[in-house]
């Protein structure tokens, strides 16, 4: 089994209301020197979380004790830029299991799904509603139901559906990944390569 199963997530959320957050912000390149997938959470949003003397920037949401939870809420076009999967590893290692935004960059979204972090894409207006919900009550809880493909603000009952392919959905709920799928197809792949031009 490749990663934790994902079914229903019930949690408070951490809001970062900034658009176009690129993967260089999520994890700067100088922290990509590991040869194993360990300890990336420490450097999640490194340069927004810490000053150059390593003191904390208290205003940044990850340092604000008001906010906690397994859901990260971010402005639109989240995860653009570099293809580094380290960005998702850092998000996962920090403790997030789902990322919510009104728009995700392609490679980032794939990377999330490949390690079992659920990217939840919702409308701009619902995203706004969620940001203001957290602003009014930082302990507000959210429910992400993969089976129903639904994100709900528990206190108000307000909810929205999100898209995910059936294939990815069943992967996530079973904790399987693409390689688990492909290794069973090796003979077909071999045949195909035998017949291909290259």
């Amino acid at each position, binding site marked *: 089994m490749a990663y934790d199963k994902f079914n229903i997530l019930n949690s408070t959320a951490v809001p970062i209301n900034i658009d176009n957050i690129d993967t260089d912000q999520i994890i700067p390149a100088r922290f990509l020197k590991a040869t194993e997938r360990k300890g990336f959470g420490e450097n999640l949003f490194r340069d927004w979380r810490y000053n150059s003397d390593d003191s904390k920037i208290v205003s940044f949401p990850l340092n604000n004790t008001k906010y906690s939870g397994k859901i990260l809420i971010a402005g639109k076009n989240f995860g*653009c830029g570099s293809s580094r999967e380290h960005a998702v590893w850092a998000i996962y290692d920090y403790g997030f299991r789902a990322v919510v935004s009104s728009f995700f960059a392609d490679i980032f979204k*794939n990377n999330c799904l490949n390690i079992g972090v659920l990217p939840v894409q919702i409308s701009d207006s619902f995203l706004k509603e969620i940001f203001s919900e957290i602003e009014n009550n930082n302990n507000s809880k959210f429910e992400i139901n993969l089976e129903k493909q639904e994100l709900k603000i528990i206190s108000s009952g307000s909810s929205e559906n999100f898209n995910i392919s059936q294939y990815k959905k069943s992967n996530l709920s079973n904790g399987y990944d693409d390689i688990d799928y492909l290794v069973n197809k090796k003979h077909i792949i071999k045949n195909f390569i035998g017949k291909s031009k290259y």
Partner: protein
Amino acid sequence: MAKTLFDKVWDSHVIEKINDGPDVLLIDRHFIHEVTSPVAFVGLKKRGLKVMYPDKTFATADHNTPTIDQHLPIKDKLSAIQVDTLEKNCKEHGIDFWGLGHSKNGIVHVIGPENGITQPGLTIVCGDSHTSTHGAFGAIAFGIGTSEVEMVLACQSIMQQKPKSMRITIDGVLNKNVTPKDVAIYIISKLSSSGATGYFVEYSGQVFREMSMEGRMTVCNLSIEMGARGGMIAPDQKTFDYIKGREFAPEKEKWNDAIEYWSSLQTDNDAVFDKEYKFNANEIEPMITYGTNPGMAIPISESIPFSNLDPNSSYQKALNYMEFKEGEKMIGKKIDYVFLGSCTNGRIEDFRSFASIIKGKRKSDNVDAWLVPGSHKVLNSIKEEGILDILLDSGFKLREPGCSACLAMNDDKIPKGKYAVSTTNRNFEGRQGPGARTLLASPLVAAASAITGKITDPREIT
């Protein structure tokens, strides 16, 4: 049914279509480097798998390697471990490894084409988003994450949803001193940094037909900066001439077969794209960025646009980071660094352009200039063509190949608060070093600015 160039290449590589899921896509060529591959090899080991087709994967060390004294052991311990790990992994699995000092070493997207590995009609992937570069040859090439690197190593295929199609057509003739970099930045400024997310782009029209292969690579390279998965240009005689005779190019009868196949890789006349954009060549000027994503760009002679956005907007946040104000002119702003290099503009043509401007002039004393060739082959051409002499005579120095300050993983970091005119691809906060401020531009703008110490329009340099 009429097909686009993209459809033709994609469809011929689909091994299986999954209902309400991705396609299983055959991958022809795979590039790996020291930063995004180690965890993939750990994954293989955990699953007890071997690399399925080691001869379809090529490895280089480029992302965190030093650009001076490459003959010495790498000083940074973690970087050294990463490069060693790659070498060991390659040995264990029988993959070609072109490490530091190897005659074919260089930035992954520079060495693929220059060794003839990159060819029309192929599917090419690499754990680096600028893999889109290889699309210049009419290949489908895109960046992937490390889980997908593992997937390709294990099964020579990848699971991907077929992206939507977009065509960008630019006809007419480019103005003097307008380079492929300016064309790409212009497009991104029009579409925004997310305007092509979910799409695969085909570039067509006179401008791209007349563009050199190096120029086409620059344009396709930057496709990702508007969110596109990749970009491609239909192969033509220029493409074939570029590939012919290179080490991994098809030979003898195979060459003729290849040409016949490659010539069929054109979008059918009545093919329909999900989205189309058209621009005129004569509207494009030398461009420069002023913000913290590549879409925040203007013609170099213009002023930073006014926005009606509130002070907490991402736009204002970007200007605060750059310490720029709305309405300010870009021309004449003092700069501290110039960086020529990267897979965007680190090829021989870029060094020729740079040299054409600085020839017979002196580098400004206020500017630190880092000139980093994209590969050893580029480095050799710089020497052979006499460009090195021109650079040295004007007070510039040349470094050894690598990604360098494009992502600032090694020691080549622009210091906090400093301004760098950079020929790279990303002006994100801290991309070129914590607190560094990047101004993306062409090699011509970089050269002109290196001479004056200020942002300078290359058309003003005589």
